[in-house]
């Protein structure tokens, strides 16, 4: 586990704790009074010692170089406790609202050890598990290190266990360099963009110089170098403008094309990353959020690279060019122009922040408003049933009122702040006029010291080039931040390593017989909470295994493990004697079909949906499979038959009908192994009975795992497994299980039989 500071180590040695023979060392974060602190615990064979202390890093005063010295720690010991573990049989983590209480259990008493916040709970749960193993086997397992990843660069744990992003080390530059491979293909275009940017900026600086300074000082002034050659000048200025417009146009065309392709590339990369990632990735994140991520993020990047960045480059270059020209022509007047600039920039920055805040608020209110509307429309049946219309109208009214108030606030702010800033810009230009005009007049009076009329005209036309893009600059940095954020998220998905990976030289089986063996399989979704505990069973090829148990017993998890949506934690699952982890994905996926309790129909016709697993199936095969699954009859009642479009409107099919479609899908795939995970749970008992006959025909000669809580579903199973709390508690044939009068299965059987009698079905299950 984590290393502890030298000073703390010494403190433990002082107390006589044999730290070198420690079984485990861990750090928690609070005192008994729940005050944040650093608590180090050392577990030895004798007992568990905990030192509560405050560790303060000594303040490093200013000096830049001091950073290289390791910081000095000041340690203040608050408390020390020692609990003998001699009689302790178990250490438990008791969950509190924001933390956990670690309790040691002796035969007839519980000893509280320490309190910690949830920041440490993962590690503590793992410690409890390790301790249990230690008591069982006498060996303390080496810790897995908290389950939380650490940044490889600075060693700090990631703040979010689901996202491997270290806020200390993520530099914006590294993000942009990661983007380079995407850009590489467009080298030529990017070079073209740069060239046109420089050309546009150059021409934009040159044109006012010609039409201002050169026109007044050289062409119109008698004695000027170009005196009288007005046509020539007009042509040159027009040429410069034309060139600027032309290169700007080329720039826009190239940029639009490149960004569209880059954003397409990004979207494609992300989507293929999605397909590659394991199922676990999707369950730990919100699916809706993932979709928004693909779209909005790629869109954000598109606008940034297409609009933001080129515009920024052009304007920045222009600003630089203008400043240089101005400074060379007239340094003093240049100062007059530039002094108010920071004020204007900060003003825009403030205005943008304020408006952003208001817009964010507006966005929140708006989404609350729409969620109320969709809530009420979606739940109209419930609203009507409880006659809550009035209250809902009131709720709606409140949200609508908030929204209009927020709209007013936005309008007020943007109508006052922006004009005020524009006025300030205009005032600045008046000052330049005034000061510049004064210089011109003085120049006329005493030749040599003033400035020319042309220079003043130049400065005035440059003013708009300098002050014009200021509000854009103020906004640019916010855009940059959000684009970097989008970029970060994209790379995160692209770079995530799938948990379930295909082995390099995976075995491909030509023919799968379908013998399945679960050998001491354990699995947990969350550390410290095992969902499957040491499950072993064998299904000979072609037989049907029924798994019974109530909700949460771990039945569906077995199916998830079998299809390798997740990998087992310990133990192994093998198919025809080959460990699933050594099997190629192709063999595994083509030999297993699953009909699950949640059926999903893609947008498209029923035909396409049934054919999903076997696109080359003929119409005849599809109809035969549908007949077997019992969905042919109701499909034919639709006016469009098999061409009926589904997925748009879920109300078309009932839950039971959807299940039958997915059974047809599985039948069509004709795999050696079939998993029926509550495949008939949404049907009434009578319909189930009808389908059972056809299911029996399909499962014959095929390894089938049928999972159900309703026993009638499993009446054809060769062998039954009763699961409870992740463990197998009973197994055998139906007869064997019924013989155990007090057994779980026999009791369930009696109860369900009674329930069926109540609804008028009097048969044996």
């Amino acid at each position, binding site marked *: 586990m984590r290393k502890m500071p030298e000073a703390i180590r010494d403190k433990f040695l002082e107390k006589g704790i044999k730290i070198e023979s420690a079984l485990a060392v861990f750090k928690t974060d609070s005192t008994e009074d729940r005050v944040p602190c650093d608590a180090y615990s050392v577990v030895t064979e004798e007992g568990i010692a905990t030192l509560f202390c405050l560790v303060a890093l000594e303040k490093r005063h200013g000096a830049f170089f001091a950073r290289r010295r390791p910081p000095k720690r000041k340690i203040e010991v608050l408390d020390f406790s020692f609990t003998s573990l001699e009689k302790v049989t178990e250490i438990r983590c008791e969950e509190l609202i924001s933390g956990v209480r670690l309790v040691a259990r002796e035969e007839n008493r519980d000893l509280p050890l320490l309190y910690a916040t949830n920041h440490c709970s993962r590690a503590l749960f793992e410690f409890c598990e390790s301790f249990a193993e230690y008591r069982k086997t006498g060996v303390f397992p080496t810790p897995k290190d908290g389950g939380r990843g650490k940044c490889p660069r600075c060693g700090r744990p990631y703040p*979010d266990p689901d996202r491997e992003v270290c806020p200390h080390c993520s530099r914006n530059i590294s993000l942009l360099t990661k983007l380079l491979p995407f850009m590489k293909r467009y080298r030529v275009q990017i070079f073209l963009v740069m060239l046109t940017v420089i050309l546009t900026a150059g021409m934009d600086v040159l044109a006012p110089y010609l039409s201002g300074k050169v026109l007044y000082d050289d062409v119109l002034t008698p004695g000027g170098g170009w005196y009288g050659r007005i046509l020539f000048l007009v042509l040159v200025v027009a040429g410069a403008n034309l060139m600027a417009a032309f290169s700007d146009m080329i720039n826009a065309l190239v940029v639009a094309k490149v960004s569209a392709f880059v954003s397409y590339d990004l979207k494609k990369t992300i989507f293929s990353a999605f397909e590659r990632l394991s199922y676990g990735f999707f369950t730990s994140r919100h699916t809706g959020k993932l979709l928004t991520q693909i779209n909005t993020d790629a869109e954000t990047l598109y606008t940034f690279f297409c609009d933001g960045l080129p515009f920024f480059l052009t304007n920045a270059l222009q600003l630089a060019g203008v400043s240089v020209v101005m400074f060379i022509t007239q340094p003093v007047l240049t100062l007059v122009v530039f002094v108010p600039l920071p004020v204007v920039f900060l003003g825009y920055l403030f205005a943008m922040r304020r408006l952003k805040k208001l817009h964010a608020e507006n966005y929140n209110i708006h989404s609350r408003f729409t969620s109320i509307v969709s809530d009420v429309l979606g739940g109209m049946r419930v609203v009507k049933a409880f006659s809550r219309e009035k209250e809902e109208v009131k709720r709606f009214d409140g949200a609508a009122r908030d929204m209009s108030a927020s709209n007013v606030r936005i309008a007020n702010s943007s109508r006052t702040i922006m004009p005020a800033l524009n006025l300030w810009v205009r005032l600045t230009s008046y000052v330049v006029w005034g000061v510049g005009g004064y210089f011109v007049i003085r120049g006329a009076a005493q030749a040599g010291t003033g400035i020319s009329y042309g220079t003043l005209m130049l400065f005035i036309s440059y003013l708009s080039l300098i002050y014009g893009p200021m509000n854009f600059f103020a906004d640019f940095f916010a855009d940059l931040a959000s684009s970097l954020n989008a970029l970060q998220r994209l790379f995160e998905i692209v770079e995530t390593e799938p948990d379930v990976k295909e082995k390099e030289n995976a075995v491909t089986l030509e023919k799968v017989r379908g013998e399945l063996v679960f050998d001491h399989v354990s699995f947990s979704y969350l550390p410290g909470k095992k969902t499957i505990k040491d499950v072993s069973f064998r299904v000979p090829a072609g037989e049907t295994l029924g798994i019974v148990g109530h909700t949460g017993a771990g039945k569906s998890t077995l199916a998830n493990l079998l299809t390798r949506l997740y990998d087992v934690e310990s133990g192994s699952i093998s198919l025809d004697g080959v460990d699933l982890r050594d099997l190629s994905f192709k063999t595994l996926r083509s030999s297993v079909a699953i009909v699950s309790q949640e059926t999903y129909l893609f947008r498209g016709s029923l035909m396409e949906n049934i054919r999903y697993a076997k696109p080359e199936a003929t119409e005849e095969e599809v109809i035969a499979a549908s007949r077997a699954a019992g969905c042919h009859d109701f499909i034919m009642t639709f006016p469009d038959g098999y061409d009926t479009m589904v997925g748009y409107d879920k109300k078309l099919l009932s839950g039971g009908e959807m299940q039958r479609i997915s059974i047809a899908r599985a039948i069509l795939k004709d795999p050696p192994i079939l998993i029926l995970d509550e495949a008939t749970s949404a049907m009434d008992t009578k319909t189930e009975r009808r389908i059972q006959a056809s299911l029996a025909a399909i499962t014959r000669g095929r390894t089938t795992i049928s999972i159900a809580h309703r026993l009638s579903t499993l009446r054809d199973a060769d062998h039954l497994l009763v699961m409870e709390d992740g463990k197998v508690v009973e197994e055998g044939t139906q007869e064997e299980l019924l013989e155990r009068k007090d057994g779980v299965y026999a009791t369930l059987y009696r109860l369900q039989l009674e329930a069926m009698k109540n609804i008028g079905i009097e048969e044996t299950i």
Partner: protein
Amino acid sequence: MNSTLNEMDKHPRERLLTGENCRFYKTREGLLAAALSDGSYEGRAFLSLAFPFQLTEEYIALQDEDKEEIGMIRRLSDLAEADRELVREELKIKYFTPKIRKILSLTERFGTTRWTVETDRGKQFFVVKDTYKSLIRVSADRLFVCDLDGCRYEIESLKALDRKSFSKIELYV
């Protein structure tokens, strides 16, 4: 082994606990325990509030260590006077939540917000993901912040926050 059975037979019958049929005490090790007068339960007491945000002294469930309900305390005042303080103390431990007094800094980076706050237990730092969803609004004025490890922090009153602190979370509430 037979929990399936038990669950099916047992009907959810409420058992009200009062000072008459239930006593609380502290074990020698300092943990709360309960004993029912009919002898059906004696051991460690685990408490859960049915309405933890609003009613902190009513509808308190007494559970065993497997979170199986033994009975319910309708009102804390139904208990014997000495027991009330014990129950209150245990509830305080279980529902302990640091109270935010001041928000020193709140920055957003890569979709998470990073908070440095001054609480009644000292300065604390935490990271929140999905900020809007991680704020539990109990009333117009009171809210809980859930960080990504599942630790909670309470803001007892938004109005009572100083202006600087409030302007930092204004966007999210």
